[in-house]
């Protein structure tokens, strides 16, 4: 395996800056890797190929011309297929957008391009970000590089698999109910859900508008921080975008020190349904943090148990409205004959998968007159209570921690016919999405039962994203010292 593909983004960036290797070489190495393994991982829906090389050569030219370049220049980034990209298709994992080429670029990919990052391809995902395994993709699932028969998580499963399989050092994802953190955890990589509003949603196809948060994935905490910093910041094209400086996440990732930090363990996130091996690794992480000097207590967030039902009302409701535009009239699939009404209905029936249809119907139900108050309205109230739980917790501790997801990667096909079982994967991640604050998933070991990765979730108040990186970096450093190598080095077969 070419050394270039095992290097971190930080190291690649330094090497290119030092003239040791060109951006073109780095991109070529990653394209070769994709060609070698993606027939099995199936992380990518579109590989940019020659276009990626052209981007890389342009970076080399800019560098040669003496232009000062940032830390992402020449670094390949895999982009979840939910971001609109000019010159590359954008499908959102759905047949209804198969072949669609957006006439405009998302703010985040625009910023990455300007920073010299090489957009190496678009990654697979659960259709319109609805799912926890990529099995809802209209183009077939992706596979977990640790064990190809297992799911890579979702909805950003293609991105997490790409990073874990060394196909790209960095990837973009979006997190609405846990869709960055959960795939990161089950693939043994780092993934962050920034503060809602901290990264622009312009050009990010909407699933649940008040929850969707674009964020970074990488193999190390520092790498994730580098991407986090470049992609984030206020965007006047997004009314929900926060007009405040990006929290100093890179600096925090470089100062992994938790001495004196007050850490709260969420008592609700344990017990029935949690895989023992996952809980063991989590408990060890808690002990580790204490050993590093943090003050750990248990905190109860009593309304968190209503987070899942509230989420599965709010998200489908917003989605049912956001997805109404896909009707075959202006772009995408059009199928069927008859009146406009008939063609719309036939197109949507043919173009949407089962989970999307389920959520559209559920959302339409929850917003219907007569049901609004009892369902959507009530869920919005629960949301307020969850925010208050967080506020109360953060008045006592600096961060909260929990497992990321109750189990390790489950087998492909296991939960496909059981939506409720699938939804349980989001148990620990959903509260942060509802409240809009920030959270990270950092690998904390392999579960004994199956040798598959588990992740530690750290949660911080809104705009305190840097705290996440401080804690995550401390855990990462301590664990790697204990193991003697990064976690991914233990992956047998493909991921190695």
């Amino acid at each position, binding site marked *: 395996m070419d050394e270039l593909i095992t290097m971190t983004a930080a190291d690649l960036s330094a090497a290119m800056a030092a003239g040791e290797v060109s951006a073109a070489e780095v991109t070529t190495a990653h394209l070769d890797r994709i060609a070698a393994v993606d027939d099995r991982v199936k992380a990518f829906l579109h590989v940019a190929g020659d276009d990626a090389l052209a981007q890389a050569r342009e970076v080399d030219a800019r560098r040669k011309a003496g232009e000062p370049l940032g830390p992402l220049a020449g670094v390949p980034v895999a982009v979840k297929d939910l971001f609109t990209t000019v010159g590359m298709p954008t499908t959102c994992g759905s047949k209804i957008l198969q072949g669609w*080429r957006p*006439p*405009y670029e998302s703010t985040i990919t625009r910023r990455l391009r300007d920073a010299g990052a090489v957009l190496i391809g678009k990654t697979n995902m659960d259709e319109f970000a609805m799912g926890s395994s990529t099995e809802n993709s209209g183009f077939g699932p992706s596979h977990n590089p640790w064990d190809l028969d297992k799911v890579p998580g979702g909805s950003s499963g293609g991105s997490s698999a790409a990073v874990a399989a060394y196909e790209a050092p960095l990837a973009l994802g979006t997190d609405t109910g846990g869709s960055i953190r959960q795939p990161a955890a089950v693939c043994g990589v780092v993934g962050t859900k920034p503060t*809602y*509003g901290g990264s622009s949603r312009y050009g990010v196809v909407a699933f649940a508008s*008040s929850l969707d948060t674009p964020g970074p994935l990488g193999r190390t905490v520092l790498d994730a921080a580098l991407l986090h910093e470049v992609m984030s910041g206020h965007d*006047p094209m997004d009314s*929900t975008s*926060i007009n405040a400086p990006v929290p100093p996440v890179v600096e925090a990732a470089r100062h992994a020190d938790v001495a004196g930090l007050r850490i709260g363990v969420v008592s609700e996130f344990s017990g029935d349904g949690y895989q023992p091996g996952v809980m063991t690794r989590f408990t060890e992480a808690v002990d580790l943090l204490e050993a590093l000097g943090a003050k750990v207590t248990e905190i109860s967030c009593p*309304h968190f148990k*209503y987070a899942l*039902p*509230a989420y*599965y009302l709010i998200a489908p409701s917003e989605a*049912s409205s956001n997805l*109404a535009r896909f*009707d075959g*009239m*202006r*772009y*995408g699939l*059009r199928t069927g*004959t*008859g*009146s*406009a*009404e*008939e*063609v*719309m*209905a*036939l197109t*949507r*029936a043919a173009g949407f998968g*089962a989970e999307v*249809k*389920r959520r*559209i*119907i*559920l959302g*339409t*139900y*929850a917003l*219907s007159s007569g049901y609004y108050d*009892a*369902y959507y309205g*009530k*869920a*919005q*109230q*629960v*949301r*307020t*209570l969850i*925010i208050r739980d967080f506020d109360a917790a953060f008045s006592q501790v600096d961060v909260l921690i929990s497992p990321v997801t109750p189990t390790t990667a489950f087998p492909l096909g296991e939960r496909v016919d059981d*939506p*409720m079982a699938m939804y349980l994967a989001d148990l620990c991640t959903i509260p942060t999405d*509802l409240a*809009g604050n920030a959270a990270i998933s950092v690998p904390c070991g392999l579960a004994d039962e199956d040798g598959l990765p588990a992740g530690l979730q750290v949660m911080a108040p*809104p705009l305190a994203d840097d705290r996440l990186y401080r804690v995550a970096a401390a855990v990462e450093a301590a664990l790697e010292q204990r193991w003697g190598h990064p976690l991914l080095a233990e992956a047998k077969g493909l991921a190695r």
Partner: protein
Amino acid sequence: MPITRDEVAHLARLSRLALSDEELDHLAPQLGQIIEAVAQVQEVAADGIPPTSHATGLTNVFREDEPAPCLTPEEALSGAPAVEMQRFKVPRILVEE
């Protein structure tokens, strides 16, 4: 039964989804299960609790009334399944709004 097959059919019509009979058969019990689960939110005592529709607390975000570059007609129509006279051609509309 929290939701009947007929209700599902009605919701499908409202949301322009031409579901097959098999799909309708399948969906009603599945959705019923989900609806029962999400109805849990009603257990929460929430008198006097204001709903949250926006987590950020932002207000008054505006843009000035200044022109910005727009798409060319070609770009606007670029994904269209059918075009005529520089307009989006759509099948006959049954019901006037």
